[in-house]
């Protein structure tokens, strides 16, 4: 009897494993682009009509522009972004040793501004910061998402998973209630996607502008009537293997 307990524990763990993975089966991961209307898909597919490209274009100009007391441009150190920034967005967010916290791409750009360029940080959701982030992320377009394997990220990622599965807000919904359990079904007139952050910063028709993943998360928090939380690490882990689309378009 005594020997059965570890077996039972293994069994329970296996069942839990199945339960937590039940939302999206392996090989079933689909980008939000698959759930959009053909018109919106066409808007994203054509670089000439994708409004997100306006931000990429601005980012390209900012990349070359000397800034701050150091009077150096991003290109001054990083040179040609198409070489040096390729694949960066596919593995972000990363662990920042200085603050001992995870840091996203926009955060890294701002910390680089402060340390190397000795310039004022760009405001969150400002056009300039979104443009630079979109430009850097655009260099990874078409590459599979491969989240950083840094062990120091594990506790933050686990926390993200816990938050993703915790019921919150007045509506008592977790992220998983919709995006793991009920993806593909409809909420009002809209299809519920799997919530993969494949194309951020992205152009949202509803916003009429480009916005960050943080802004999108705040939207969902308002949707379930709760306060914002940081989930990015867990979301990129869920989206492992999906292709980067920046700048994506979403309805």
């Amino acid at each position, binding site marked *: 009897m005594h020997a059965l307990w570890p077996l039972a524990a293994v069994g329970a763990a296996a069942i839990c494993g199945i339960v937590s993975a039940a939302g999206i089966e392996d090989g079933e991961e689909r980008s939000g682009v698959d759930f959009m209307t053909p018109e919106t898909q066409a808007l994203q597919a054509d*670089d*000439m*009509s994708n*409004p997100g*490209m*306006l*931000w990429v*274009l*601005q980012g390209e*100009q900012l990349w070359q522009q000397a800034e701050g007391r150091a009077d150096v441009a991003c290109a001054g150190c990083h040179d040609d972004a198409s070489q040096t920034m390729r694949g960066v967005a596919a593995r972000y967010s990363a662990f920042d040793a200085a603050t001992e916290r995870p840091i996203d791409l926009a955060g890294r750009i701002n910390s680089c501004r402060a340390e190397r360029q000795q310039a004022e940080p760009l405001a969150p959701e400002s056009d300039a910061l979104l443009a630079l982030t979109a430009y850097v992320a655009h260099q990874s377009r078409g590459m599979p998402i491969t989240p950083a394997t840094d062990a120091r990220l594990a506790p933050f990622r686990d926390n993200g998973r816990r938050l993703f599965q915790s019921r919150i807000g007045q509506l008592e919904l977790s992220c998983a209630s919709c995006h793991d359990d009920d993806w593909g079904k409809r909420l009002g007139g809209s299809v519920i996607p799997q919530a993969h952050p494949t194309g951020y910063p992205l152009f949202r028709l509803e916003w*009429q*502008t480009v916005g960050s993943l943080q802004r999108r998360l705040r939207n969902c928090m308002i949707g379930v009537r709760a306060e914002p939380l940081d989930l990015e690490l867990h979301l990129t882990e869920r989206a492992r293997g999906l292709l980067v689309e920046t700048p994506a378009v979403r309805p």
Partner: protein
Amino acid sequence: MARALVNVPKMARQGEVVEIKAMIAHPMETGYRIGPNGSNIPRDIIRRFACSYNGEEVFSADLFPAVSANPFIAFTLVATTSGTIDFTWTDDVGKIQTASAMITVN
């Protein structure tokens, strides 16, 4: 810094009908919205878009508050001679933004 994307085919045959696409970053603020402090957000839209082919205006459009942000305009031209195609966008505050592209006709 003008943020505009224009798409003009680099090459075309004489007499060919070519599609031209032009998009510019602009908030197209309608003037009907109220800001967080309760006062009106002033109207700021692009009033006029014009396209000239070797200096001659060949297409223009008047825009109104119902047009979305970052207006995207597509139209066709008959390729006659090689030269430049210039685009201008004029907004409410009188700011004129321009872009241009070359086309080779043979």
